């Protein structure tokens, strides 16, 4: 039982990080119909910005978090305005290639701006281990699970009750009709990119606190993309839950079935689920597959 709990709790924690990054994918897809292949790189850049604030200004957790997420907001808006908006109306393939190019640029910028060494994001919190019997978990891991739950609840309310959330759903459903109804699609796109960068930034900060910061961190995007496919590309809440499912499944597989299965467990799950529900667990039937 202890072994199972250790695997499940760790899986839940890493799954929560995947879930947050996956929500970032879904927010952009829902508003723009575009898969952003630079999501993992965005996550990494924001974590590095947090580390820069921590090492050069202050290690105060509130200042670092607000500073890094503020930077995420600006970065998301800048990418949308400078890189993505000129691509409006261009073929999807070209737009997706632009996000791939963006990913390469952001990835390479780590070495130009920072360095290749791993670093620890020390905010004075999140690293201590809480023990319940023989099972231990870091406080940062508990916090990321709690944050994911809060984000899921927040987004549910946002999409259901807020004016802007309904506008986003309208753009996602039919952007031309939404435009005719007075919804500013430009503003919706900008807000989606900003929100997506902030959500990814939260994931990046939690990951850097619990694990470490290194130039390979962008691979979180690769691990989280299956989560958003599993939950549904257009389902923000579903993508968050998809991350948790993938995290727990790969940890249980790695623990009980052994080496090699950890990497494929999530993908096996996706194949099985997509065979039954091709639009994902929580996705809408009429979405365009990428």
């Amino acid at each position: 039982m202890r072994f199972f709990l250790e695997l499940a709790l760790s899986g839940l924690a890493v799954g929560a990080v995947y879930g947050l990054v996956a929500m970032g994918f879904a927010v952009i897809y829902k508003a723009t119909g575009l898969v952003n292949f630079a999501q993992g790189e965005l996550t990494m850049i924001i974590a590095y910005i947090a580390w820069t604030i921590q090492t050069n200004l202050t290690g105060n957790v509130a200042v670092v978090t607000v500073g890094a997420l503020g930077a995420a907001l600006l970065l998301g808006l800048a990418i949308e305005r400078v890189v993505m908006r000129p691509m409006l109306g261009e073929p999807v393939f070209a737009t997706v290639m632009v996000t791939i190019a963006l990913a390469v640029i952001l990835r390479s910028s780590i070495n130009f701006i920072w360095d290749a060494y791993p670093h620890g994001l020390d905010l004075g919190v999140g690293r201590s281990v809480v023990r319940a019997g023989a099972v231990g978990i870091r406080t940062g891991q508990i916090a990321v699970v709690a944050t994911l739950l809060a984000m899921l609840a927040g987004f549910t309310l946002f999409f259901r009750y807020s004016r802007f959330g309904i506008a986003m759903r309208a753009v996602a459903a039919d952007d031309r009709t939404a435009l005719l109804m007075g919804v500013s699609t430009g503003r919706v796109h900008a807000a989606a990119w900003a929100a997506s960068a902030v959500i990814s930034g939260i994931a990046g900060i939690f990951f850097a606190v619990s694990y470490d910061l290194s130039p390979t961190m962008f691979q979180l995007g690769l691990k989280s993309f299956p989560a958003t496919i599993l939950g549904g590309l257009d389902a923000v809440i579903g993508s968050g839950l998809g991350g948790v499912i993938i995290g727990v499944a790969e940890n249980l597989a790695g623990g009980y079935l052994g080496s090699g299965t950890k990497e494929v467990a999530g993908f096996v799950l996706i194949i099985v689920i997509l065979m039954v529900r091709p639009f994902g667990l929580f996705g809408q039937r009429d979405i365009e597959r990428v």
Partner: protein
Amino acid sequence: MRNTLAAAALACAAGTMSFGALAAEQGVTDTEILLGSVIPLTGPPALLGVAHTTGVKVAIAEANNAGGVKGRKLRLVMDDDGYVSARTLQSTRKLIDVDKVFAIPGHSGSGQVVAAMPVLEKSGIPTIASVGPVKAIYDPPRPNVFAVGSSYEDGIRALVRYLGDRNPGKTWGIITQDDDYGVAVRDGFDTVQKEKKLNVVLSATYKRGQQDFSSEMARLKESGAEVFLAGGIISENIAMVKEMEKLSIKPVTGIFWPGRVEAILKLMGPASDGLYAVDYVEPFGSPAGQAFMEKAKPLVSEAEFKGINRYTMAGYAGARVLIEAIKRCGRELTWACTNAEMARTKDLETGVMAPIGFGPNSRFTDSRLQIMQADFATLSYKPVQ
């Protein structure tokens, strides 16, 4: 007889190449000798590439401060291969054909040198491989390619033998990467496991680039392993050690030299205290290591000094071999002479590893290994008896 024939063949090859080199000794002027380095300077492998280049720079600055080599100053140009073999090949060609360097004191990782070998061998340019010496680089011996260091298999064997002797009858766990590096580690481990009949209770692999090791380490705990070989490189070993701390287990743990970078001890935290490692270059906690740091400090920039790690020593030692050979050739500098003089290198003291030597039929230093242990209080490794 076979050795004599091989030596004769090498001598003939070196002689043949000297005709090509005589036409014009590229990269050499009355006042300067141009050297070139192909190394990863971007991406995660820059951790080793940048540090290695700093070592080469220390050796060059040291020689230049002493008046240069027979009146000629040494200058280094670098090309970033990103640790991608296809780019290594391009960079090697560029250094030889476009930059026209005289010699290559630092070539990229093991797989990259092997990929560029046909170009290096055909050109005859004096080359040092001191990042990851593997058999394919020095066996069969080429006239112009010299490997400095020790083999991965020998390194792992030395570490596992040491830990096995210190912990008789204990249970073992091993986790390795699923690539050629992991295979080399596992091969070395398997040899000693059979030899000493080690009781292995966990044997696992992980995918390169993996960041979360919670399931692997939970399995380690469940297996009850008392001695553990962490076969990761940098981030992987950090993650494994931190996970062990979380799970409240502390088996006797050994790591291999690609991950023996002092800076990561801080990231591992107190759990890193007592980690065993094996290496052929001196730990910075030893008198020799401290002497090297003092030597390097005035010769490189502050940022370069901050980034010094074990690869800096490897780069320094390799560059010293080349520079000493160039010195012995004097003003009449040719590739043939430099290659021949490098082959004649014997007991060269670099201060960062055991004395270096090659031979007429040997292009590998096969350097002496030493076991060391991490000291978290000083964030350094110290040699153990």
